[in-house]
């Protein structure tokens, strides 16, 4: 109740009450409760509370479900993966029922009450949208979260938030599943035993008291990047209360290069904000700025603003990418140069040199020629260019890039500098090392670990586990008290005294800074599902205001910042908008104190050696999403691998190392690939990994993606892939050089689940691409190779065709804007209750994603027929068969949802009419009618249909019941399913329009994929309305259908990809 009343629904949705309604809500009935008082109350009569809750809940179906579940140990162990998982979840649910009764008992209580007295503005059945933000590293993505009767079910981007502008990325979309993750830690434990929160508070108070006397001597706090003002304030308070205490930071997947580079260039930590929309030429030095790092969602939007083409006359920006391994950014580059990571620094030095900034860099001749062309291009557009350096690159590279941007006059136009967004920038490696050294010297008596998992992520030579474990020599532990706050009881938790279950960001109040400094309030959507607490709650226990709730802390801080005016009004506006107005950092002028010539010569990279790179995984990042089934099953943008990481090697290197793949009959090109297993011994440690051949990777580079090989991540994430942290040493955090002898084939092979192995279009009219020049000269190039069937061949010639008079829904996907970032895939999964099937089923080719992103390689950008050079049919499409074209192919991505054909081949063959056409031209699936002959899927040329071969959906786990979208049927075993164009959203909009007796306005219907897409590649609308965005796109000459010769007449059409190569390099 209290949370409902406090929350201000965002006004971006039509069904929001007008803002002034909220002001009325500040009436006595909705008065914010005093949290400490409530907590005290709960503690005092926890027992009674517990039982009364039970009775109250007797009527609650979820809860009855909990009680009536059979005892999990008797659950039969099923024969395959997909079902095992369910058994496990049943077990989880039961343990929830047994252990966490009070935990889950509490949550529904607050949702039974509100419907006795319905909160204002809530119409049962109509979702509400609340603004909040998801903190992530040094950034926070502003969100609008959809809430059905108090259950958050879907996140969308907040259009008012600078780092979102209404879009999201896969991580944000998947965070909803993390909230309902049944494996989350559910209560406070001490040495594994369940404790109450008050017991923890007492212990914390006692501990704090002892430190008061010692001025905090031996008190250490370890966090990740902190960009939350209230947390920063808490930490500041603690550091002032206990002057000798120390705050360490360790963010495993974010390099220090960014920070240290800024320091090197400007003498102080400086935050760089890019404005890609102002740049005509962009050069990325191993920077995946479109897909990772602060502001990536925003940058994608801005970058692709300059790649939208309305006609042949339009201009485009040009993107050069130099990188060791193919990234999302590199895959959409106009020119891509694969270079070893070490050579990237050489490249930066050479670039600076060529721009006359002094210094020098050694480059291979062809790379040098490439650079010349780039430099010429950069000089051609003064003050309209942008050079970026990657998060994993060295401080030198970043400093050089600052110098280069400065020299090119880009500062203030295509980028600007602000004070750091993170509260307290430090060198994380040094910070962690200091902590470890101090622990070894016995200087640490109490350690608070907040939200990071050092035992898993710390460099292996630090051996962080040993710091926490019982020490034989000392006959005791190095640290007396270790308090650990994390969402799961993970690798670190097992060595800690106290473990506090951390609340999900949708469960607790907080705040966070975006990449540009904008502060947004993190507004909870639901009371904690279990006895979890926020980082603030824990930190507050050590401050002088232990009772201060996060809610009050946020309000107090805002009050202090905005003393004048009606605070309640301001507060409500802030909650409603999701951003604190005017908190973005102003641009500051940072004067460059750096001379490239002053750099000491870089270490030579001997080409004989292999270069091992550590990179965050595109799906599960540094491992924090390891237990998120959606992200685990999400095909990684370039490799299309799921459920595993693999040691990525270039085709040439693979040939030299004699590692290869084989395609077994089970699954095959679309499913299971058997991959050679290799032992890798570097940095004084060894790891065994499956090798994966990745076209476009720099020769001699082996990439070891981080985040896998978790030992205690939860059911979904444990023991998947290999742990790259195990060979990651502090002296080679991002790159390790070693002779190729350190890789040894074990002779075994390992099955990998890959959803698209074959990269070749076989010369079919599927993905059409061309260059900007070609587009200028031949605007119709997308239709060059089309074979349209003559209508008069029809058996039904002369028959009247169906009119689709009123609405004619259609979707247009601009391949020029798609870089395969996967946001749409997860958005679709969340919106449409799509099941996770598990690795085994993916290997059988049974994954369920309604929208998939196909990745094709071509050897030339120019439209040499559909698909370009590699698609000539000569190539087998098998990356393990080496051909020079694979050293650096051009990569294209194509999202493929249901094509919603007007002459749907699937409909004609369905024996029971379970898939039929609606009056608006939708190809509807009628689950109730489907008997599951799979004939429709066989007859679907685009293979977008998905079948429930087994009972993939989890019907038992109560958390998942809360999570599902009530607007969408939860499919069971034996029925076909597929993309519906989000028909539930269409119907809602049509009903709203009909109530007003108006046509559905353009933009009133936004499909889940369209809404999530950061580059706005997907546009949905009414093709009958000539002014709709989709109708306009469909009139473009670039607009084409996949394989039109089939005469299936898809409603989903594509706009041909256009790349903007530098003629100089093209001809070379």
């Amino acid at each position, binding site marked *: 109740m209290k949370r409902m009343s406090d929350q201000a629904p965002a006004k971006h949705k039509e069904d929001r009450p007008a803002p002034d309604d909220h002001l009325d809500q500040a009436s006595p009935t909705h008065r914010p409760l005093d949290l400490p008082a409530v907590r005290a109350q709960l503690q005092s009569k926890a027992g009674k509370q517990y039982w009364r809750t039970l009775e109250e809940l007797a009527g609650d179906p979820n809860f009855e479900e909990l009680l009536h579940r059979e005892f999990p140990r008797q659950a039969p162990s099923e024969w395959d993966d997909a079902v095992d998982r369910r058994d496990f979840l049943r077990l989880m649910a039961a343990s929830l029922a047994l252990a966490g009764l009070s935990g889950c008992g509490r949550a529904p209580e607050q949702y039974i009450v509100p419907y006795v007295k319905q909160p204002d503005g809530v119409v049962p059945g109509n979702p509400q949208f609340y603004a909040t933000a998801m903190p992530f590293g040094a950034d926070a993505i502003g969100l609008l979260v959809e809430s059905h009767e108090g259950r958050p079910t879907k996140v969308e981007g907040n259009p008012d938030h600078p780092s979102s502008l209404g879009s999201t990325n896969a991580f944000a979309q998947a965070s909803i599943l993390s909230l309902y993750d049944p494996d989350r830690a559910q209560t406070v434990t001490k040495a594994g035993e369940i404790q109450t929160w008050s017991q923890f508070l007492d212990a914390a108070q006692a501990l704090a008291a002892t430190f008061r006397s010692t001025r905090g001597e031996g008190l250490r706090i370890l966090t990740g990047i902190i960009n939350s003002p209230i947390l920063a304030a808490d930490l500041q308070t603690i550091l002032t209360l206990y002057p000798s205490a120390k705050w360490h930071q360790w963010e495993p997947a974010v390099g220090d290069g960014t920070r240290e580079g800024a320091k090197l260039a400007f003498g102080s930590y400086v935050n760089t904000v890019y404005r890609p929309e102002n740049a005509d030429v962009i050069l990325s030095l191993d920077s995946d700025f479109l897909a990772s790092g602060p502001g990536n969602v925003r940058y994608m939007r801005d970058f692709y603003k300059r790649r939208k083409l309305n006609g042949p006359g339009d201009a485009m920006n040009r993107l050069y990418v130099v990188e060791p391994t193919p990234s999302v950014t590199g895959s959409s580059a106009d020119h891509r140069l694969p270079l070893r990571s070490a050579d990237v620094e050489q490249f930066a030095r050479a670039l600076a040199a060529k721009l006359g900034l002094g210094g020098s860099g050694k480059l291979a001749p062809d790379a040098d020629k490439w650079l010349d062309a780039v430099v010429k291009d950069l000089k051609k557009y003064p003050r309209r260019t942008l050079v970026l350096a990657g998060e994993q690159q060295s401080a030198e590279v970043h400093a050089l890039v600052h110098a280069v941007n400065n020299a090119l006059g880009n500062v203030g136009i295509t980028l600007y500098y602000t004070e750091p967004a993170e509260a307290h920038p430090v060198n994380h490696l040094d910070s962690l090392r200091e902590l470890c050294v101090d622990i070894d010297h016995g200087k640490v008596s109490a350690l608070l670990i907040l939200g990071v998992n050092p035992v898993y992520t710390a460099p292996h030579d630090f051996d962080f586990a040993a710091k926490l474990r019982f020490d034989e020599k000392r006959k005791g532990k190095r640290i007396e008290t270790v308090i650990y706050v994390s969402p799961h009881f993970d690798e670190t938790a097992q060595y800690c005294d106290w473990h506090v279950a951390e609340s999900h960001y949708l469960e607790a109040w907080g705040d966070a800074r975006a990449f540009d400094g904008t502060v947004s309030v993190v507004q909870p959507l639901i009371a904690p599902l279990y006895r979890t607490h926020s980082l603030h709650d824990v930190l507050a226990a050590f401050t002088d205001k232990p009772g201060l709730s996060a809610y009050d802390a946020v309000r107090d801080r805002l009050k202090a910042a905005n003393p004048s005016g009606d605070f309640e009004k301001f507060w409500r506006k802030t909650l409603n908008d999701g951003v604190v107005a005017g908190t973005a950092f102003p641009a500051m002028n940072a004067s460059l104190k750096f001379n490239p010539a002053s750099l000491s010569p870089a270490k030579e990279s001997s080409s004989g050696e292999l270069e091992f790179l550590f990179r965050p995984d595109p799906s599960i990042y540094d491992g924090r999403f390891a237990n998120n089934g959606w992200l685990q099953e999400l095909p990684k943008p370039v490799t299309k691998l799921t459920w595993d990481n693999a040691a990525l090697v270039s085709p040439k290197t693979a040939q030299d190392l004699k590692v290869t793949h084989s395609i077994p009959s089970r699954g095959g090109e679309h499913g299971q690939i058997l991959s050679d297993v290799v032992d890798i011994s570097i940095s004084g440690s060894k790891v065994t990994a499956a090798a994966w051949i990745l076209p476009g990777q720099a020769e001699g580079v082996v990439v070891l993606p981080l985040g896998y090989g978790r030992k205690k991540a939860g059911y979904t994430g444990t023991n998947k892939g290999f742990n790259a942290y195990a060979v990651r040493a502090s002296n080679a955090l991002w790159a390790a050089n070693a002779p190729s002898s350190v890789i040894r084939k074990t002779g075994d092979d390992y099955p990998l689940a890959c959803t698209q192995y074959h990269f070749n279009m076989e010369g079919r009219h599927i993905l059409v691409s061309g260059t900007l020049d070609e587009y200028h000269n031949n605007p119709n190039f997308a239709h060059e190779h089309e074979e349209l069937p003559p209508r008069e061949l029809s*058996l*039904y010639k002369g*028959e*009247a*065709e*169906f009119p689709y008079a009123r609405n004619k829904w259609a979707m247009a996907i601009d391949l020029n804007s798609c870089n395969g970032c996967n946001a749409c895939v997860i958005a679709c999964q969340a919106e449409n209750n799509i099941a996770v099937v598990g690795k085994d089923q993916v290997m059988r080719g049974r994954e369920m994603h309604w929208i998939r992103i196909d990745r094709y390689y071509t050897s030339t950008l120019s439209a040499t027929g559909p698909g370009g050079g590699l698609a000539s049919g000569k190539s087998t499409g098998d990356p393990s068969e080496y051909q020079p074209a694979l050293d650096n192919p051009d990569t294209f991505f194509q999202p493929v949802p249901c094509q919603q*054909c*007007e*002459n*749907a*081949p*699937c*409909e*004609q063959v369905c024996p029971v*009419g379970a898939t*039929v*056409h*609606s*009056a608006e031209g939708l190809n509807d699936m009628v689950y109730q009618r489907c008997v599951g002959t799979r004939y429709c899927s066989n007859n679907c040329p685009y293979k977008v249909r998905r079948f429930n071969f087994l009972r993939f959906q989890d019907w038992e786990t109560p958390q998942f019941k809360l999570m599902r979208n009530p607007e969408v049927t939860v499919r069971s075993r034996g029925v076909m399913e597929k993309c519906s164009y989000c028909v539930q959203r269409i119907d809602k909009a049509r009903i709203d329009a009909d109530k007003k007796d108006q046509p559905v306005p353009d933009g009133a219907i936004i499909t889940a994929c369209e809404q999530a897409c950061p580059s706005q590649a997907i546009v949905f609308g009414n093709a009958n309305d000539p002014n709709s965005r989709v109708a306009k796109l469909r009139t473009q000459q670039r607009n084409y259908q996949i394989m039109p010769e089939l005469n299936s*007449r898809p409603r989903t059409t594509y706009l041909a990809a256009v790349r903007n190569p530098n003629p100089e390099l093209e001809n070379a």
Partner: protein
Amino acid sequence: MEQHRSHIYGVMAEFDTPEQLIHAVEKARAAGYHRMDAYTPFPVEGVAHALGLKRNHVPLITLLGGLAGGLGGFYFQYWANVASFPENIGGRPLNSWPAFIPVTFEMTVLGAALCAVFGMLALNRLPQPHHPVFNVKRFVHATSDRFYLCIEARDPKFHLMETLRFLQGLQPHHVSEVTDA
């Protein structure tokens, strides 16, 4: 005499070969007998002709059955797709008649076949568990290797003694009375 005759169904002569049977039937017809039937272990060419059997109604019934099945089959599909529950299936017209032909054909065959078989049985008054001829002990050979001619009592010319004597004259293998009970 009269009441005595009422128990007689007819008299039956047993022959060894089909030829003898045909010969006997012709003789009997010549002698003016009409109400008689022959029993053979397999269809013997010529006997039916000798008995003066012409065309039968099985083909007509079969034709009607086929027509009913075919027309009904097509009409049902038309009605279901156009009138009862019209749906846009893959942009095809409601009356996609070419797609309705296979089912129409199958229904034609089914209707005809059912009528042929059950029509035949009905016209033959089958199943009929009991019949006076079964009262003749030797009649079991009718389904094995012997051929029978039975002149029935209903025949106006029928006179037990004379008919017996007449049949005896045909050198049968054996002659016997056929009684009702």
